[in-house]
């Protein structure tokens, strides 16, 4: 299982992740990215068929704001 969320503090709204993985990331009204699966809570697993997209987005985020984990990010809400 893979879980993902965006560190919204460090995201610079560059629009790269939505290019790489349009099925995982979108942007809020201010351009800051979030994971669409569960509103960036990181508790809903990313479907297997999107792992490649996720990996691409992860590697290409210029600020390393995309976090991936094998565990749900239980505790945290939108950061």
């Amino acid at each position, binding site marked *: 299982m893979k879980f993902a969320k965006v560190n919204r503090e460090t995201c610079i*709204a560059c629009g790269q992740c939505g*290019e790489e993985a349009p099925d995982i990331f979108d942007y809020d009204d201010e351009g800051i990215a979030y994971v669409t699966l569960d509103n960036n809570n990181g508790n809903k697993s990313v479907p297997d068929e999107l792992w490649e997209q996720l990996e691409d987005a992860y590697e290409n985020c*210029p600020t390393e704001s995309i976090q991936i984990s094998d565990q749900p990010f239980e505790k945290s809400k939108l950061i």
Partner: protein
Amino acid sequence: MNQSGQITPEQEVLNVLGGRTEKDPFLVFADLREKGSVRPIPMPMGDSDNQTWIVTHMEDVKKVLKDQTNFCVDPTTINKNSDTKQFLTNSSEEDSSNLFLASSLNALDEPDHRRLRRLVSKAFTPRYMESLRPRVQEIADDLLDQVQDKGEMDIVLDYAYKLPINVISDMIGVPKSDREQIYEWSEAIANGLGVGRIDNEVSESLEAFSNYFTQLIEKKRQQPSDDLISELITIEEEGDKLTEKELLSMVQLLIFAGHETTSNLISTGTLILLDHPDQLEILKNDQSIIPSAVEELLRFHGPSTTAGPRYAKEDLELGGQQINKGDVLFPLLKSANRDENVFINSEDVDVTRDIKRHVAFGQGIHMCLGAPLARIEGDIAFTTLLKRMPNLKLNIPRKEVKWQFKLAAQGLSSLPVSF
């Protein structure tokens, strides 16, 4: 000169950055990459006991651009009294007309950068840029309408330059009647600037440019409309707003950063395709791959030769070299994008290549704010051109195609084609 009387690649790369050589820059970069990832170059940069380095491998270019703990863009972050910045732009802080180059987003470190970028990106979201697509298409079609019947045009003058300046002017809210003037000023400014050089005639244009936008901003304050300046005026976050000065330098940076670079993507990209008919053919047959072909064109010959200079905040090791605090590093984007450790057949252009991992838009917190817009413009520019002018051909002998250097970028001055 070394012993054999030959210019070393370390010396030659300075000529490349300063626009003083006819040599193929990519050969120079390849020589440098082979010698090592981080090479000392003989360039005095103000604070004289510091070494200047050129960074050529992808891994280290990314490291320098991403690591805010060890590298910064503003030398005064390290040393309050640094005269390097002044040396680079040859401007003094009091000279307000030059200020935007030295004190805008691209030249600020955290936390100032973060504050400004957050404010600006509110008005400049990926979604907003995507919403400009129909307008970009309209502009591209208008430009080609004007030349379609002639059977020939100059890609640079008739298309590549006009598309981005019109897009950005529309966005910012520059009235149509003033665009020719803006275009002239920014040309004059871009032509006169290089790494470590600013020609004298430039000051006048800089001042006129700056005065124009001061007045335009004032006008928009009185009469807001549906454009980016009006948006930037009202934007605020937790009571924080852009100051008058920040607003002015931001607007000027947007014109600057958004126009020349995108023009070069379109004109250089067209030349690359004309030089590689097999690649052109692939795109003509399948326009759905144009967005990824744009990425390959950006990788193969992106508009920015180097990112802005970075300064080491600590003594550290990079690419096997000892870097001292205060040393200057030029992350050579065009070299990283040809790194043979990262790309198979890195010196070949292949529009079917599956990559996004280039650094043509930079990396880290300063990564291009306008990248989504530039991608849209590139996509539409090539799609529209190939659709409407499928028989595109170079209209002068290949050896007469001339490069010119502006703002440390290499572009074409003219590209006559028939179709």
